[in-house]
């Protein structure tokens, strides 16, 4: 089975995020990590491979040409990686991202494409569906469980009460929820062999796409303004001992804490 895992690099969750004058996130390659949701996706890809054989290919697109995180995915166990690296990718919106990924996926070939449930930077959560649409293939979204039986993929997705079970034929696109598994640590052998694994770099031209079909040139949406959210804790100070216990009790019960 050929499993392609779509992975994105996002800024570390420990680093303060900043917007540039172009209203785009300032991305420092040193602070890039594997999008935390994608660690579950890579894990799920590896588990599918353990069960059904075949290969796990990491697909990522990146305006910068950094490989640390791709090597980390390969240290976890992925067999090889394909990077669409092109300066014209900068500023791609979700539509352009789906267009580029779909073109790359068609070039690589696959039985199943896995996405994370979203990304820690923009968190639009729509790229899996856009990509599936470009590929004209079914999308099973937000899987909390994924099994493949012959030519059929079955997923479970959490619902308000219980879960729904959905199936579709291969080839298809699946986005996985972070409750689907517990990602493994890269093994020491995996780390030592990651550099020996093939890493192929493609440009937009290699995918038959023009520079204006991706990046800010093709973006349909534009960020006009953004502000950081500050959360203010609710605080009340009781002064004096008179009836203190009763006042604390009332406060807690008024706020439905007890």
């Amino acid at each position: 089975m050929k499993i392609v895992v779509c992975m994105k690099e996002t800024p570390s969750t420990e680093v303060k995020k900043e917007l540039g004058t172009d209203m785009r996130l300032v991305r420092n390659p040193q602070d890039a990590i594997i999008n935390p949701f994608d660690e579950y996706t890579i894990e799920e890809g590896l588990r599918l491979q353990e069960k059904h054989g075949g290969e796990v290919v990491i697909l990522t697109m990146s305006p910068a040409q950094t490989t640390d995180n791709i090597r980390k995915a390969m240290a976890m166990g992925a067999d090889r990686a394909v990077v669409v690296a092109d300066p014209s990718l900068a500023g791609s919106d979700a539509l352009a991202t789906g267009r580029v990924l779909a073109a790359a996926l068609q070039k690589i070939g696959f039985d199943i494409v896995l996405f994370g449930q979203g990304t820690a930077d923009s968190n639009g959560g729509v790229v899996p569906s856009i990509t599936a649409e470009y590929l004209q293939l079914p999308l099973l979204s937000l899987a909390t469980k994924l099994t493949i039986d012959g030519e059929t993929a079955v997923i479970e997705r959490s619902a308000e009460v219980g879960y729904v079970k959905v199936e579709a034929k291969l080839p298809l696109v699946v986005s996985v929820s972070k409750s689907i598994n517990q990602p493994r640590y890269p093994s020491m052998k995996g780390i030592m062999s990651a550099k020996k694994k093939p890493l192929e770099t493609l440009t937009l031209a290699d995918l038959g796409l023009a520079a204006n079909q991706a990046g800010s040139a093709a973006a349909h949406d534009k960020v006009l303004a953004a502000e950081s959210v500050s959360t203010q804790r609710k605080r009340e100070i009781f002064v004096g001992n008179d009836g203190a216990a009763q006042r604390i009790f009332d406060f807690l019960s008024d706020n439905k804490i007890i």
Partner: protein
Amino acid sequence: MDFTLSDEQLAIQQVSRDFAENVIKPRAFAMDASGEFPLDIIQQMGALGLLGLPIPEQYGGAGADFLAYCVALEEIARGDASVAITMEAHTSLGATPFLLFGTDEQKKTYLEPLASGQKLWAFGLTEPQAGSDSGGTQTHAELADGEWVINGSKMFITNAGTSMTAGVTVTAVTGVKSNGRKEITNLIVPTGAEGYVIGPPLKKMGWKASDTRPLSFDNCKVPQENVLGSVGGGFKQFMQTLDAGRVAIAALCVGLAQACLDESLKYSHERSQFGKPLHDFQLIQAKLADMATEIELSRLMYYKAAWLHMQGRDFTKEASMAKLFASETSKRAADQAVQIHGGYGFMDDYPVSRYFRNVKVNEIGEGTSEVQRILIAKQLLQSLR
């Protein structure tokens, strides 16, 4: 001079740090309280390849270099001392001698399961009456009918009695050399060998969840081929083993000292006295600065000793210096960490009280500080002769 770690060393450091933080550290308090050997953690480390880092892939190891192993050990020690010493004793003392001195057959039989982390191995040198004076070894072995018959006892042996231990390498007197000195041979004793008795776990001040036992050999029989390397090669073998082991112990000490600094920084930020956080007091700042400086120095020393070792150059003096300074650094760091924590630091609920108990043995195990100073002085005085 380039101090940058390679991509592989950095990745190994990062995984070790994450594993220590997420898996080991949350269990450290309970492990210390119960003294129970954390079998599941050690097995997970085995599966990840953390128990065979510097062993080549062809023997089941990860094929990383010696510095990568030390850097990983520092991170594991930052999580917990008991887990770190289990990893160190297994890798440096248990597995490495098979790589250096074992036959192809022995590498296949013994080294592979150790390097791939399925089994643990112990190294039995210290005896009840022979600690620093390892030449005073009394355990002896005689060849009879194609078998070694071993008699004697060993003391403070790490990893000898866990449920995943496959055996122990035992130093034994096998005769007298022409110069009148004892002929020492290392013998391979699998767990379960006839006459090999593993004593109950010893109760310790620290490193409580590591497996430390007395061993006795009562007409213990192993096949003639269970000699590691050559008959009479034992003394040279363990001296060589201990040299590299000291660099690893230095790395372990740096991890323990770093944990003391981590806690001290955190606490001095949280705790206020006289209306300001502790770290606003210059006397506390001085403690933090001294700790950080000594830790950095100790780290540089083990990096350099490891580098010399990887270059195939003589590193005996530097190994002793790194071990001596790093172990004393970890003791001072734990002492100051408790001091910064005040009364709370004396309470079991705070990790620094555990750290305080865990660091003392660093000045004793794998060569006391006194022995290290003798070894360093010996190297210095050699140039006068």
